[in-house]
């Protein structure tokens, strides 16, 4: 199988995800409304109460809206990753997952294509959100909007792989909502997305310790630093390693030798 054929496969999977995204306009709107409500309502309301003292990577005191934007970018990607995994459960229930899995390409490659496609969709959403935030007045250095792109790819793969892994354990579509509540909300709220870690520590040492161990904290910090043209080695390393480990586990979970499909009970006769 030549490299060009692998390229055609990747292009096909990405095109399909983008086409599906275009056809599901309500999904796009919902993905944007959520962070915008946080930005326009929550952050504006808490501006006075939660002004952020000088903290890296910012070079001066910043308004809470400015602080919260990288966390909301992470939120978009986190929700999109879970949305993609929800669609994988749906695809599996509807049978279209089988079409992907009987392709001659290695299964790991196919799942990686699916993951990259989902990541690309989330990046489109992120840039639309950042454009609205820019018009609202939350403006990062222009170069930051380019430098953040690799961080968005890593975060997208990380949360997408987590969703893919979770989807392999979910037997029915109906059960997915529960998993989302147990994963998305703790991951988001127990991170530095809404408050800096030092402020969390002032409130609760236990919550601080959990947030400091949460890989999503590192993803958010990676995005925050990249947006302000800074390099956060620890955040990048942890995010990258988490993405690789989760992707490996997801591929393992979809390995027929491990019997993912058999665990689901197959179906038919």
């Amino acid at each position, binding site marked *: *199988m*030549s490299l*060009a*054929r*692998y390229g*055609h*496969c990747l*292009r*096909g*999977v990405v*095109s*399909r995800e983008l*086409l*599906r995204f275009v*056809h*599901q306009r309500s999904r796009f709107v919902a993905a944007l409304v959520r962070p915008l409500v946080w930005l326009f309502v929550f952050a504006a309301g808490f501006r006075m109460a939660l002004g952020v003292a000088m903290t890296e990577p910012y070079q001066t005191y910043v308004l809470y809206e400015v602080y919260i934007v990288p966390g909301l970018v992470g939120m978009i990607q986190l929700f999109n990753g879970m949305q993609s995994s929800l669609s994988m459960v749906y695809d599996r229930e*509807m*049978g*279209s997952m*089988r*079409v*992907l*899995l*009987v*392709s*001659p*390409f*290695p299964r790991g490659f*196919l799942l990686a294509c699916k993951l990259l496609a989902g990541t690309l969709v989330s990046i489109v959403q992120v840039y639309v959100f950042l454009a609205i935030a820019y018009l609202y007045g939350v403006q990062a250095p222009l170069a930051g909007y380019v430098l953040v792109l690799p961080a968005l790819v890593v975060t997208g793969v990380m949360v997408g792989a987590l969703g893919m892994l979770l989807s392999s354990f979910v037997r029915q579509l109906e059960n997915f909502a529960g998993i989302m509540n147990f994963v998305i909300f703790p991951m988001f709220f127990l991170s530095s997305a809404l408050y800096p870690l030092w402020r969390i520590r002032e409130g609760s040492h236990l919550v601080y310790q959990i947030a400091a161990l949460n890989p999503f904290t590192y993803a958010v910090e990676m995005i925050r630093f990249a947006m302000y043209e800074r390099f956060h080695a620890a955040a990048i390393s942890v995010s990258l390693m988490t993405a690789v480990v989760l992707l490996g586990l997801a591929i393992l979970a979809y*390995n*027929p*030798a*491990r*019997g993912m*499909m*058999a665990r689901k009970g*197959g*179906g*038919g*006769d």
Partner: protein
Amino acid sequence: MTQARPSIGVPDGGEQIELPGNEPALSVRDLGFSYAGQPVLESLSFDLRAGEFAVLLGPNGAGKTTLFSLITRLYAYRQGRIWVGGHDLSRHSVLAHARMGVVFQQPTLDLDLTVRQNLAYHAALHGMAPAEARRRAALQIDRVEMQGSLRQRVRHLSGGQRRRVEIARGLLHEPQLLLLDEPTVGLDIASRRALVDHVHRLCRDQGVAVLWATHLIDEVHHGDRVIVLHRGRIRADGSVAEVVSRAGGDSIGEAFDRLTQEAPR
């Protein structure tokens, strides 16, 4: 079983395809599969040659879908071996998968996409360049007599039309073997008959080996090969006349009833 096969160039596409050699399109040997400690399939062995139309006939729960899931590698097997076009599925799954087309029991087309987009997605999953995909999509859509439907959304097609599109999709990469798992589920009688006749024509005209799983006797044509599967075992394998004469009865329906009524595990 050998790995190398003779090949020729396709004049209009310029791509290399393999000639059907001496190897069967599908070979299954001593295949067994258990789920939760219960045997689902036991020691299945059969061959399927190019241009052969075999009906895998079995009641619900016989193990037909499990067999298809093993051949398509959705499930892993530990007992027995499978070759597709001479390629060992467990060792050369890429080559084996490239030679099989599948129509699943559940419809698997993306309803929100057009016929062309669905076919393009499948073509990409087989590594085809866009131009080649468009050429083959037009060809296969012609063959399933769905001309003019390429721009239509699948959601707007009838059940029978969707099945035809799925067959066109299964043949898009020009496989040697076409697997159809109860493809007439949900279709009315006229659509069912048309679909069965259509796949017979494809099998005859294109030399594709077809394994058609069903529990419906009226989908068996007189010239078909019939493999009767019941409780995970092959109870009979041969032409309609051979199966009827071996099992007794006046028709394939009676023979099927006899073969599936009391066979112990």
